[in-house]
């Protein structure tokens, strides 16, 4: 509410800035009092001052005065025709100008702001204030750990603490390094291995590299019951084109699963897709509004300013996961246009489209 009041006040002030001078009655003489003529008069006065101070000799002053006088005469001759400040045409002009300003300022400001602004966000910003405090604490804690690690890079526990924080904050490369350090110093555990693998996968934009697959395999060897390790192993097989193995793995996971486990719908969806069925329904149905907002935010940003291949891929995947197939399809096309110069990225997108069942052939069928 306050925002609207402030905006209204600002608009008023801006309009008044133009309307106020238009409403004044000014005589032409008053306005043109400072002009060329004035300039040369000043010059003459200055010559007198210099003469008084002994900086000019009498001869020089005479010559200077003569020259300035000549220019002054010319300036008089050049003087502008009388200004048209009164009379009916002038009034009409002013009225038109006033109407123009009264309409154009709010019109432009509101149109542009309406298109670009996000007036609904401020109310969250107040909430975000509290969040920012938490963030600041988190940030300073992070900084503390970082500086601690700078001093004692061999402290494995520090790396243990910081690695998941990096992963959560989206600093995947840092997370990869932190997990690697923790494993090197503290040895392998299932959690560290899984975290390391996940960080690698995230850093690679969702691709399970051979290195990541190896790490998950080791995690699985340590704990055959680790769902995460098994899932990524299956995903790796799927990405390698080994559908049979992926199907088998997914199947085994579901067979031994607690039906309440959070990952069950994800696995089931992947399995169904592999088996050629349309996913029963998008696995994550009741998405929180925050996630939807985030996806839409990403969407509008990419539409506005474009982005990298991995960002587009994330967007397409998000829409697909949210079950908004048309949008996923549409953004996929847009992404390909946007990244047309980048063969690598387009290939990645094609692969993604295949994975998500979005590719063109499927559509034709």
């Amino acid at each position, binding site marked *: 509410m306050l925002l609207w009041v402030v905006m209204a006040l*600002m608009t008023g*002030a*801006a309009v008044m*800035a133009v309307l106020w*001078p*238009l409403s004044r009655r*000014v005589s032409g003489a008053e*306005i*043109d009092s*400072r*002009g*060329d003529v004035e*300039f040369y008069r*000043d*010059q003459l*006065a*200055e010559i007198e001052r210099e003469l008084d101070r002994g*900086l*000019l000799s009498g001869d*020089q002053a005479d*010559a*200077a005065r003569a020259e*300035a006088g000549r220019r002054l005469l010319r300036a008089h001759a*050049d003087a*502008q*025709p009388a200004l*048209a*400040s009164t009379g009916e045409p*002038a009034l009409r002009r*002013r009225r038109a*100008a006033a109407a*123009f300003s009264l309409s*154009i*300022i709010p*019109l432009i*400001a509101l149109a*542009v*702001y309406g298109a*670009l*602004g*996000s007036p609904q*966000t*401020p109310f*969250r*910003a*107040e909430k*975000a204030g509290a969040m*920012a405090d938490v*963030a*600041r604490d*988190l*940030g300073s804690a992070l900084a503390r750990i970082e500086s601690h*690690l*700078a001093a004692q890079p061999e402290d494995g526990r520090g790396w243990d603490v910081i690695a998941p924080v990096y992963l959560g*904050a989206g600093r995947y490369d840092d997370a990869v*390094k932190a997990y690697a350090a923790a494993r090197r110093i503290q040895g392998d555990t299932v959690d560290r291995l899984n975290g390391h693998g996940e960080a690698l996968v995230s850093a690679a934009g969702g691709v399970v590299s051979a290195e990541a697959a190896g790490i998950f395999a080791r995690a699985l060897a340590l704990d055959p019951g680790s769902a995460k390790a098994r899932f990524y192993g299956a995903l790796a097989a799927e990405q390698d084109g080994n559908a049979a193995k992926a199907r088998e793995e997914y199947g085994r996971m579901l067979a031994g699963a607690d039906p309440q486990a959070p990952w069950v719908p994800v696995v089931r969806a992947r399995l169904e897709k592999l088996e050629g069925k349309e996913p029963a329904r998008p696995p994550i149905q009741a998405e929180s509004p925050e996630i939807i907002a985030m996806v839409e*935010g990403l969407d509008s*940003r990419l539409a506005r*300013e*474009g982005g990298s291949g991995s960002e587009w891929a994330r967007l397409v995947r998000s829409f697909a996961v949210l079950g908004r197939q048309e949008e996923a399809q549409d953004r996929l096309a847009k992404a390909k246009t946007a990244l047309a110069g980048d063969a690598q990225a387009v290939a990645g997108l094609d692969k993604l489209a295949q994975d998500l069942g979005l590719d063109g052939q499927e559509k034709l069928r």
Partner: protein
Amino acid sequence: MIVEAGHYALTLALGLSLLQCAIPFWGARSNDPVLMGSAVPAAIGVAALVGFAFVALLIAYVTSDFTVLNVVENSHSAKPMIYKITGVWGNHEGSMLLWVLILALFGAMVAASRHLPVRLKTNALCVQAAITIAFLVFILFSSNPFTRVEPPPAEGQDLNPVLQDIGLAIHPPLLYFGYVGFSMTFALAMAALIDGRVDAVWARAARPWTLLAWSFLTLGISMGSYWAYYELGWGGFWFWDPVENASLMPWLAGTALLHSVVVMEKREALKVWTILLAILTFSLSLLGTFLVRSGVLTSVHAFAVDPARGVFILAILSIFIGGSLAVFAWRAPLLRGGGIFAPISREGALILNNLLLASACATVFLGTLYPLVLEAFTGEKISVGTPYYNLTFLPILLPLMLVLPLGQALAWKRGDLFAVVQRLGALLGVSIALALGLIAFTAGGPVLAPLAIGLGAFLLLSGAGEIWTRSHVRGRPVSVAFRRAVGLPRSAWGSALAHAGLGITVIGIAAQAWSSETITAARPGTQMSVGRHTARLDSVRPRTGPNYTEDVVTLSLWRDGRPMGTLETTKRLYPARNSPTTEAGILTRGFDQIYVSVGEIGTDGSVGLRLYDKPLVLLIWIGSLFMAAGGGLSLTDRRLRVGVPVRARGGVAAQAAPAGGAA
């Protein structure tokens, strides 16, 4: 809330500048003083609105409001406060906002000025508003700093320690003050073309803006050069990098403009050329602003890569450069030609100055843009480096500097070259003797450098000599001369100071011919020699900082067996980002510096070191400070100058023009 209000203020400013452009222009066409008068409050209003928007962004940075995308991408809550503040313009969006803010503030200053003829002021404010509109549209639609994110991330992304440097934080704003200052000269030039009237009054209006812009640009370039010197660890002060050239070109054109405006003010000559220079200088400023930001440059500086904005930028460039040149071609023939004058005169010398500066600017332009054009057409990638500029830029600047003291001493209108040479003869003799002495003293060393030092000394001495000859009259006591010197116009002092500063810089650059470099691998205890000095590596110790570890390399230095002190150079590692940086160690003695940067520290304990002995190197930047100070001093010359020529006669022949301005 404040962020949205700032965003809205920016859109309001767009609307208001549209009016600032349209209504006064209409008023000027129909000769209506009331409509024309609306330009003034509109310009002040735009400045207030843009200022509000900037403050809003500043607050978002200071409070780390991570609902703002720009803050998320360029800040971090754990950053030191000073870098949160400088972070506002440390990125593309914020820097563009700063650009417009400076533009609007300058517009408001023009609006508030009471010394301008009303039509000139009105038209200039219209043109200025047009520039504001273009930049506001660019900011709002392609580089909006007020874009929000929802939900806000917990933390910002930029804690890059390498970029947290005070030199990097303040030199771009200085450059922007320079670039934008030239926009006011540009606006005045366009206004003059629109009205078809260019005269001494115009020149007097344009001169302060040119001086202001030029002084800031000088400072900005000099700061940027010093930053590169101590931060990049190569010990060089100028790399002919396209980004540096982008600021050098408007400086060269601006220097020419500064001088031709004086000719116009005093002699009502060079009108068409001065207007053209004003247009070109601002065009180069625009190019300078955008070349860096559009990422088209192959450059070690290029950190902004975004071709999407390129189209927008290209549109702005072609509208303003193409549009203004078109107006120029259409209206310039209507300008009443100025007087013609003798080749041997102050104005004749200034024409030569303009010619040489313009040529120098053209060679830099060619060297900077030729690779881009070639790549666009043939795909061939080339780089144009120092050798090119040594063969083109220097041969053009050398005669310029030789003629400078003569031009400075010549009288307006009809100079007496013989008298001037006689007067400067002694100074020239001293300088040549200095050069010859240096050659003899450093036998077998560089030959050109002593000559260049002689040239620098000549410039420096003739700057001082100019003040002396203007205030000293033969047969009068020194006290009179002193009183007269104090009474000289500040602009005369300013020009003498700036020219002397150029001399100082030339000496500093020339002295680098005697700098020496030693690259070596050393262990603690190793002695090495660099130039006139002996250095010993004392120790290599690890040390931990707030968020980094570093290896501190300590060296002791001797000169002729006398100890000079110790210095430290470090290799830092920020583990969170795994990025190493080198902090060069600099030991300053007088104007000399010993500069050491550390390379790799081998596993066997050997340390790669790069040592430089740089005699008189500080003079390079001290000279440029003198130049900027000279510009500033001229700017404070608030007297209404008497732009009237004085014929040199009889006994006052040696006095030149008492009212002469900065030449």
